[in-house]
């Protein structure tokens, strides 16, 4: 879009009024914010002794999971769109012909390097079948780098672990299912 495009409405900045020019009202406004935070309840917790509460687990961006369909099969159709969208290049998929008649291809292997991942959620956005989702699991530790490369089985097990607490977004949030 060019600056001369008729669809753009150009707004002029308003001239400063008396209050802005006096500076004092804004000064008081800022101090009020500071004072309010001093007396408001604390949000910091003593992690890991105290677990932080996740506001809405459905939109939290933690560890990935691979969803299963109604028959318990991996939902992923190996379209590589998550790998394409991934800015950290942490998803590695090997696709092959699926053994099921209703599906053309499926991932033979699906690996996410959790150490490389920046938890931006682009994979979840890109997925056309809502197969990959980010859970609210926020503390992820491992003893080696290899351990932090999650394969298909591990990602499916994350689904089995979290499916009750965090149902698939598809139904709740109007996904394609």
């Amino acid at each position, binding site marked *: 879009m060019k600056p001369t495009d008729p669809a753009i409405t150009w707004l002029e900045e308003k001239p400063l009024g008396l209050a802005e020019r006096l500076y004092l009202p804004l000064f008081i406004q800022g101090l009020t914010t500071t004072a309010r935070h001093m007396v408001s309840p604390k949000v910091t917790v003593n992690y890991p002794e105290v677990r932080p509460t996740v506001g809405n687990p459905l939109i939290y961006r933690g560890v990935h999971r691979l969803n299963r369909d109604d028959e318990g099969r991996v939902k992923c*159709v*190996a*379209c*590589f*769109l998550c790998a*394409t969208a991934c800015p950290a290049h942490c998803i590695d998929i090997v*696709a*092959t*012909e699926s053994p099921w008649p*209703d*599906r*053309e*291809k499926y991932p033979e292997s699906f690996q996410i390097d959790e150490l490389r991942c920046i938890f931006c959620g682009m994979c979840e956005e890109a997925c*056309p*079948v809502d197969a990959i989702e980010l859970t609210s699991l926020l503390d992820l530790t491992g003893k080696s780098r290899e351990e932090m490369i999650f394969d298909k089985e591990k990602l499916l097990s994350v689904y089995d672990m979290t499916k009750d607490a965090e149902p698939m977004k598809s139904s709740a949030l109007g996904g394609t299912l």
Partner: protein
Amino acid sequence: MPVVIVDGSEIEIGADERLNCIEAARRAGKEIPHYCWHPGLSVVASCRMCLIETGQRDAATGKITMVPKLVPGCQTPAKDGTVIVTESQLVTDSRARVEEALLIDHPIDCPICDKAGECLLQDYHFEHGQAERRADLHPFTSRKRDVGPTVTLFVDRCIMCTRCVRFTREVSGTGELMVTSRGAKEEIDVFPGFPLDNKLAGNVVDLCPVGALGDKDFLYQQRVWFLKREANVCGGCSAGCSIHTEHNQDTVYRLKPRENPHVNKWWICDEGRYGWHHLHDPSRLLAAGHRTESGRGHAGTEAFEPVEWADVVARLRADLKAAGRLAVAVSPMLTVEEAWMLCAVARSIDPEAFLAVGHVPVAGEDETFPGGFTIRAEKCPNRLGVEAVVALFDPQTRTWGDLVAHVEGGNADAAWITAGYPAAWIDDATAGSFAGLRQLVVQDLFDSPLAARATWRLPAAGFAERAGTWVNVAHRAQAFEQAIKPPAGVWPEGRLYWNMLGRRGLYDPVAVRHQIAGSAAAFAALAGDLPATGIDLRLQQLAPS
């Protein structure tokens, strides 16, 4: 000169050119979308995507008379005074409706379709289609049909352009594919018991404008947007077809034909198309090796100790110099530049070195198809180029047979055999002739009976891993760039020869080519930048004054 008016601008076309409106509009920079038309096939005008408005300008009065309805651009010849309108409201609406009609029967399974990213249905829908669909469409999975050993048909993705059917009838001449049923139930199919199995079958996959025909070799391997392409030349036979090597992270995934009116038109054969798998064969030689004392008389990798390439450069020259009379086989798999440098290296070691063109593999006979495409029997890309290079150093052209006889006659103390053939090429008996030599240097892709007798066993590069110029059977020289890096531990031949000649910096094939062109009349045509379609080597370019 005939003048065609495209969207108000006049363009001149050649007097004896037979162009249709799509081609004429393209000259004026206007792209008319089309599915069924292909320059290499007959015209059927069935897809209706190229509908345009046309008219005729009266030469005498200048008055333009328009045809009252839309006509297919592929079927309408462009002649003097033809008026082509490609951007009117009528044309735009028509394209949107054609797109809409095509999508009603389409599975819209783009995320799992291998064509996504290079699909004309996607591109044209984006460019000419409607933003919103009126029909209530749901994505579904396409039916799959096995039509041949290399090709899979996704029945529901097909838009019935019949390019593939016409290809098998007109170019390969085998006619396996046909259209069954009628109207909305039309489908592509093969006759029962007659699968799509001919030597050009892979081209139907390239021709398919949508994802209906899939190459089994490439199916599900990569999404096309991950692939990078390099203009390359096929090394499968002496036809030297122009190709694109499509690769990602130094792995080749597929080869595609590159349009070249002088060589292969739009096609390549399946032998060439799938002839890249040897590049990633785990049994390739991957390190330069020198035979150890204990390894004398033994075959196998354990008989060789790995040598750093920097040491190879120094030791190889000293070893060959010490050995005495040298015989060199210059492989027809090498580029002109590499062959020239190899000859120069050989002559700098032994000024009397015996130079011969290496083994020329031949399989069967030349095979020409009704469409004019020919698969050559000579399974090497550069025999003519290497012959011409060797002739620069030695007027007497010698063959591989001459070299074997020369060595058998005890006239050589050392031999340097370059090979690089994708398949086994030498038998034990022939290799035995080289047993008595003091030094035997073998440069090859794979282990062979000859390499088992070598004192120096050096790995060679594959076709996509080298850069340079190849001269095909019709004397057409095509320069190409390196597409992928060779595996770790492999130096392309050119790099070794460049270093052995004591030249500094990185191996630069273009500099060598210019040097050859400047020093030899036979290669004068190679001066300057070569066009992408190559140049006829017999064409003696006149130096600009």
